[in-house]
């Protein structure tokens, strides 16, 4: 149903075509009736294989015919190694004939998997050669890629070998997105990431990959595929939720809320152990705004506190503990960790290099959106706060350059604006519960969870179309 060009024909040609198709239809229907008859009478023979092979050549997606073939094959299975092997070999040829007709047939590729799993000694090497052949004909054929993964998982091929294969395919054609994708899957297998780092691979691998891909984009900056890969390497991947903020929102001894804000939504049962004056807050005492099961924000109403200082302690695990001192009637908000995970000095200097390279590339070849997007990402990853003006101006350039996605860039500007406002708010007026976000041309409220502890948020004079995220403003609601 894809890519069938409609051709204008004369009445005569149309009649000719009609006749030809009518014959094909009769032939197909005749074969189908024969196959179904045999099946309904439990006749599993050579002729059944022959008929279904012909039908599948015409229509390799007719799944029931493949099912019938498998039933015949299983019925014919003998203990004799050689004849069983020969039968299965025959199936491989049938599949290949069908793939020649349609190399994207789900049914044909699946049948090949089934056959291979039935071989006493599967000829995996030959299958890898077949994959090479089909990927040469169409390097993006995801059926063949999936089959390759199936073969590799069962053969003696190691991820290291496949990483080399991905390298070769990339070298052959830089815009082979499938090969870059394969690389992104293999790298963490060959070079497992370290726990507690925001990167997908260890630092030295990350740096090496960054340098290689920058070289690739310099070769031809108009190829999209390497840029996707580069964006992945540049951006942090947060693995586990981190506690970002703890807020003690209190208007007196009888009215105090404890608010926890996390970097990712989590369930009630995964909230770290928190105690007030050495008394544990029970997990089930926490509730989320809107009663969501997964939430960035969790709140607990504290029971009456006496006047004076109280201590709140948070244990992330047996070794990491944090505590803060609060007093009823006095709201205090504490950041427990940075908004994003720290980069090491080495990664930082490599990203600086990538940034410089992309700025050079932008000077050499102005107006390449991928270059600008990468500069935005790298600056954002390095320090969004100090780069705010620059990132924002690159995003404006992107809006002009890529008008189809102008609203995406507008939303990213809003995210940046919010992120820098949060950082500024934190630097200057940490305990001020007034948060001004007015007149920022915001199109969305990103990081709305980080407004949870603010008693008053001024969002006037923006370009917002939805205030749904404001449901997390629990402190506003209580005062």
């Amino acid at each position: 149903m894809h890519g069938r060009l409609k051709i204008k024909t004369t009445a005569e040609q149309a009649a000719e075509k009609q006749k030809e198709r009518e014959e094909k239809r009769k032939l197909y229907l005749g074969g189908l009736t024969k196959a179904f008859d045999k099946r309904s009478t439990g006749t599993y023979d050579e002729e059944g294989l022959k008929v279904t092979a012909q039908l599948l050549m015409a229509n390799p997606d007719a799944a029931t015919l493949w099912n019938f073939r498998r039933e015949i094959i299983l019925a014919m299975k003998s203990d004799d190694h050689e004849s069983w092997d020969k039968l299965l070999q025959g199936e491989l040829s049938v599949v290949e004939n069908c793939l020649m007709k349609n190399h994207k047939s789900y049914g044909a590729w699946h049948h090949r998997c089934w056959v291979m799993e039935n071989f006493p000694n599967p000829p995996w090497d030959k299958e890898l050669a077949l994959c090479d052949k089909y990927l040469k004909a169409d390097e993006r054929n995801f059926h063949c890629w999936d089959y390759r993964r199936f073969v590799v998982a069962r053969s003696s091929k190691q991820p290291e070998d496949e990483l080399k294969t991905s390298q070769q395919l990339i070298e052959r054609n830089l815009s082979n997105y499938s090969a870059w994708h394969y690389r992104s899957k293999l790298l963490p297998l060959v070079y497992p990431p370290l726990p507690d780092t925001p990167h997908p691979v260890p630092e030295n691998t990350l740096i090496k990959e960054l340098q290689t891909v920058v070289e690739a984009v310099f070769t031809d900056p108009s190829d999209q595929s390497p840029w996707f890969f580069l964006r992945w390497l540049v951006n942090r991947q947060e693995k586990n939720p981190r506690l970002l903020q703890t807020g003690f929102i209190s208007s007196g001894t009888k009215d105090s809320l404890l608010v926890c804000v996390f970097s990712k939504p989590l369930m009630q049962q995964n909230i770290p152990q928190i105690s007030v004056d050495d008394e544990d807050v029970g997990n089930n005492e926490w509730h989320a705004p809107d009663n969501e099961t997964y939430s960035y924000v969790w709140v607990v109403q504290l029971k009456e506190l006496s006047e004076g200082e109280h201590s709140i302690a948070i244990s992330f695990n047996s070794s990491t503990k944090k505590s803060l001192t609060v007093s009823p009637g006095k709201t205090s908000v504490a950041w427990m960790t940075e908004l994003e995970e720290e980069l090491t000095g080495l990664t930082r200097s490599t990203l600086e290099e990538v940034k410089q390279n992309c700025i050079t590339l932008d000077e050499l070849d102005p107006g390449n959106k991928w270059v600008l997007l990468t500069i935005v990402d790298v600056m954002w990853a390095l320090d969004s706060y100090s780069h705010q003006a620059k990132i924002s101006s690159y995003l404006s350039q992107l809006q002009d350059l890529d008008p189809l996605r102008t609203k995406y860039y507008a939303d990213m500007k809003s995210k940046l604006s919010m992120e820098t406002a949060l950082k500024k708010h934190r630097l200057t007026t940490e305990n001020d519960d007034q948060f001004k976000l007015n007149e920022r041309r915001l199109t969305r409220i990103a990081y709305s969870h980080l407004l949870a502890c603010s008693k008053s948020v001024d969002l006037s004079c923006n370009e917002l179309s939805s205030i749904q995220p404001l449901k997390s403003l629990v402190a506003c609601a209580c005062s």
Partner: protein
Amino acid sequence: MGSHPKDVVITDEHPKTLLYQKHADYIVGYSKKKDDYEFTMTEHFRMSGMYWGITALDLLNQLDRMDSTEILDFICKCQDKGSGGFSPSIGHDAHLLYTLSAVQILVILEALDKVDVEAIVKYVAGLQNEDGSFSGDQWGEVDTRFSFCAVNTLALLKRLDAINTEKAVEFVMRCQNVDGGFGTRPGSESHAGQIYCCVGLLSITGQLHRVNGDLLGWWLCERQLPSGGLNGRPEKLPDVCYSWWVLASLTMLGRLHWINADKMRVFILATQDAETGGFTDRPGDMVDLYHTLFGLAGLSLLGESSLKPINPVFCMPQYVLDRISVTVQIMST
């Protein structure tokens, strides 16, 4: 930069307005040409073909032009007495793909009482594997499309309790890639159709928070090409069925505004065939029911007022889901 070798050109020759009546006539006419070569060669997915046609006709407010007695009679004959699943056509084998299509039609026609619902539930639940994935049938092909078919079917039957949804979600998450998208199986490349299935499954099960909306939303809006059409993977040609997979996914992520709706509309309208009615994959190709539904469904998502509103997860008219009180999760931005 700027050149898109893999795109199409839309000219003044291509339709610019919705050929509403022509499409309805094309769909009604299609089911009457049972002796056609094409009808014969599509028998192996007839049940889905019927779902495409019926849903499209319903969007066009002309569902009453279908012979529902004949349809229901056919569907009943396709329920496999042994397994409980549905086959695409009489004589063919049951499969999750056609079980979903059959259930969708039955829900639209309010006729679930005509079939053995408990047997369907048992069939679907029986296809869940240890790792949470689903096989399409007893022959073991695993695909995230089948996970979606299973969860979608059971949600419509209100029997999600019959499977391990937590494991189903875990499996889908194993199919996520570094670009934020999803593929067929763990390790497979991201593909817009597969993304629709996986995000749809997460929406039905209330697990959308597991997706990085900005990352995946960006990948999805990058599918739009200068012609306005959307492709399914980077550096591929645009195709009208992707207007559905991508637009529906973006809707679930609360980011439909990230693509240019006006240009998208122009592209979809250009894939209409003014002679025969119906939509094609790309301007100038042959029409089929599949692209006709997804063309109309895409226009409906973009707010085309002459069409009934469509639900982005189930790809069924919204009023049908309201009627059975099935809701979906939409990410807030």
